[in-house]
């Protein structure tokens, strides 16, 4: 059993259903986090024509970055999970949109961290096929 799968994502980011677009943190190694998500029309907003919409895919990538930060804050630095904002998306590309029921496996790689701002590259795969990439910057809310 992968130990990461026992951490509910609700302990790692404050977003709530139906606006939660991540299911499980699968792995965290050297600043990179791998997250799994299966979009579900009954559970998620931002669905369209049986697929996760383009902005739903963007929100999924942003929440993967939030899960990464949440894991580091909670389990490495021993800090509470904080609210985060998306600051910037760059070079968003996608070849197709995920269908409801398909499982996304997304890896976010930390590229730079300055105080509460982190820059990550995200890669979204379905069954090994790379379907989307983007660079994104997010900021955690200061208390």
């Amino acid at each position: 059993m992968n130990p990461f799968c026992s951490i509910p994502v609700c302990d790692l980011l404050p977003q709530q259903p139906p606006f939660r677009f991540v299911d499980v943190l699968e792995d965290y190694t050297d600043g990179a986090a791998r997250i799994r998500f299966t979009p579900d029309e009954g559970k998620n907003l931002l669905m369209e024509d049986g697929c996760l919409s383009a902005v739903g895919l963007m929100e999924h990538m942003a929440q993967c970055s939030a899960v990464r930060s949440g894991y580091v804050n909670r389990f490495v630095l021993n800090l509470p999970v904080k609210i985060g904002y998306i600051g910037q998306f760059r070079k968003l590309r996608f070849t197709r949109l995920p269908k409801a029921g398909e499982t996304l496996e997304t890896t976010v790689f930390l590229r730079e961290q300055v105080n509460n701002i982190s820059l990550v590259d995200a890669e979204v795969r379905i069954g090994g096929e790379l379907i989307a990439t983007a660079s994104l910057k997010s900021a955690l809310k200061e208390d």
Partner: protein
Amino acid sequence: MLEGILYRVVSRADNAATVCLLPESSIYKAHFPAYPVTPGVTLVQMALELMGRKLTGARDIKFIVPVQPAADGPELRYSWSYKDDTTADVMLCLADGTLCAKMTLSVQ
């Protein structure tokens, strides 16, 4: 997808529109509990719906200030222009003129 759920259109012109956010939207209860902030991606979706386009990618999207419906007043002004058939520049401002977001979107 979001009209009537997160916003309603107040006025519309050729390359601009004013929308009113709906503070009672269920999205604000989830994002975040006790701290409602308009999710950045929904600001992108509103632009797409107002332009009548679909997103195919994006070169750059900057979210400059968080949009909190209760604190900032719910009215948002969108304006856009097309660089070519598939590239749109979008600006989003609060009613007082504060720039909230700037986007260069690939659309179809």
